[in-house]
């Protein structure tokens, strides 16, 4: 019961902050900040999808960018080839979701044969295959140069798009929250904890891994499509390892295995990215902001291996424990 209470508290805070964020564009007009928030929401969806694999099922994937890229390219190509209308936006989303569902199904099947870092290496290679494919298939993708495209007027309005991504993020958050609290989600955690034991309880772990992989792939594809819309431009970088590393960094800094952690991680990373690049005027080193992320990453792994949320929960548990002890001391004393 205590666990559910803690979960509720997190969700309530999340909901309150989301409500504040809905009002935000109405009271404070700052185009830059609006764009940053939109980025945060998109990457929060992406990081949450990655957390299903890393945090809940215990699958380490270095190729999550491939689903992100599939979504981004589906959207961009549709917008470029057809009219920039809402109908095609939905069609592009469906195509992207469909394609990444198929790819993630195949990739998920491979977890049968490969475990841990071997699987990670394989996904890395597969994502790179997509990267090279996008580079070479110039007639469709225009390679590393990429292409710009027009989007429906409704989405051109920054506030509209901001609200859409925000609502989507909130929906994904609560859907995943329910998902991990469900009997299915509990089995995923069991697989992460002890695969062999889960199997001997009579759960067929391959199905679980494949379904988790498909859900993560679909969500990543949606995030990719939104990302493409936000930039109105696409190039091969959506398939690059950097995208996967972003998701990895966000989930680890926020707290692996907590949905809210992925959202917080996305916020921290995007904001610090923005802040660090704005410091370029002070010193040229800030142009290489990625160095700081490297340091941040090392520090997190060393001192907060469970991320921000994990560290907070541990602190709270400790406080409660001490309180309990005090009480029992009083009772005996």
């Amino acid at each position, binding site marked *: 019961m*205590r*666990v*559910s209470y803690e979960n509720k508290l997190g969700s309530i805070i999340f909901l309150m902050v989301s409500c504040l964020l809905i009002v935000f564009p109405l009271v404070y007009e700052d185009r830059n900040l609006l764009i940053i928030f939109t980025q945060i929401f998109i990457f929060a969806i992406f990081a949450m999808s990655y957390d299903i694999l890393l945090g809940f099922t215990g699958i380490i994937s270095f190729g999550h960018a491939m689903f992100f890229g599939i979504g981004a390219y589906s959207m961009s190509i549709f917008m470029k080839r057809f009219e920039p209308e809402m109908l095609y936006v939905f069609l592009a989303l469906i195509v992207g979701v469909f394609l990444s569902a198929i790819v993630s199904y195949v990739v998920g099947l491979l977890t049968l044969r490969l475990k841990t870092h071997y699987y990670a290496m394989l996904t890395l290679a597969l994502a790179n295959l997509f990267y090279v494919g996008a580079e070479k298939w110039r007639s469709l993708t225009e390679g590393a140069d990429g292409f710009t495209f027009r989007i429906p007027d409704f989405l051109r309005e920054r506030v509209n798009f901001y609200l859409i991504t925000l609502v989507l993020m909130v929906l994904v958050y609560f859907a995943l929250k*329910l*998902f991990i*609290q*469900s*009997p*299915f*989600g*509990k*089995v995923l*955690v*069991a697989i992460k*904890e*002890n695969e*062999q*034991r*889960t*199997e*001997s*309880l*009579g*759960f*067929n772990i391959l*199905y679980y891994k494949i*379904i988790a992989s498909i859900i993560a792939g679909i969500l990543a594809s949606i995030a990719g499509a939104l990302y493409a819309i936000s930039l109105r431009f696409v190039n091969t970088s959506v398939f690059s390892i950097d995208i996967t590393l972003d998701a990895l960094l966000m989930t680890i800094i926020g707290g692996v295995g907590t949905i809210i952690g992925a959202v917080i991680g996305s916020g921290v990373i995007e904001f610090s990215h923005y802040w660090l690049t704005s410091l370029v005027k002070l010193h040229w080193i800030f142009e290489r902001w990625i160095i700081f992320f490297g340091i941040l990453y090392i520090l997190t792994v060393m001192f907060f291996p469970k991320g921000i949320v994990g560290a907070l929960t541990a602190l709270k548990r400790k406080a409660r424990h001490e309180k309990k002890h005090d009480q029992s001391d009083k009772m005996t004393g």
Partner: protein
Amino acid sequence: MTSIIETKNLGISFGNHKAVDQVNFAIDEHQFTSIIGPNGAGKTTLFNLLSGQLKATNGDIFFCGKNITKCSTVERTRLGMGRSFQLTNVFPNLTTLENVRLAVQAQKKIYFQMLKSVFSYKDHSEIAKTILKTTLLVNKDDVLAKNLSHGDKRKLELAMLLALDTKLLLLDEPTAGMSVEDVPAIYEVIERIKEEKTKTILLIEHKMDMIMNLSDRIMVLFNGKLLADGAPKEIIANETVQSAYLGGLYDEYTA
């Protein structure tokens, strides 16, 4: 009368080494059978064959008259064979209750429900709590499994097995690595299960004195072969068994 589990010429070899060799036995329902034998006799390997962790190189296994030699671990569990492990094998970062609840969920055959919270399955937690009571793990509901003492982990292992509610229980050294004081508690749990007379139990154990009173039947495994099979009293009186434990037979078998 059909037996609940039966093996015919069951064997497995790793290279030239025959870890389990031509083992034949049949166990009746609700019987309590113990398997004893020195280290390396192939007891755990035999269990791995029965529960499907290893595939037999020759011979067949029948469960309730059905040939299950080719069935996977998952299928065997669903048919009604549950096993515990010699090395503690639980979900370390989940609470005690959650560990058992997962087993209950498996028993209730709720596999792919993903749109409903587990908190809406109140009966699952209730069953899990009752089982924790049977296995003497009261008040340890929200302790993470990794923080339990070794003895409690072994009890949890048993609790998860009970939650599966299988007809056949394969218990692999439930008291392995436990301090002497903790052993009786485990046997108290096993005795309770036995008294319910609803389960067939197959137990691996080193400690002879513990199993003598409990077992209806004892099988002695030595160098992968079934050396003796009978009531506890017969086994004690059996000379080959005694020399096997003293090491006298060792040369004869390996030479």
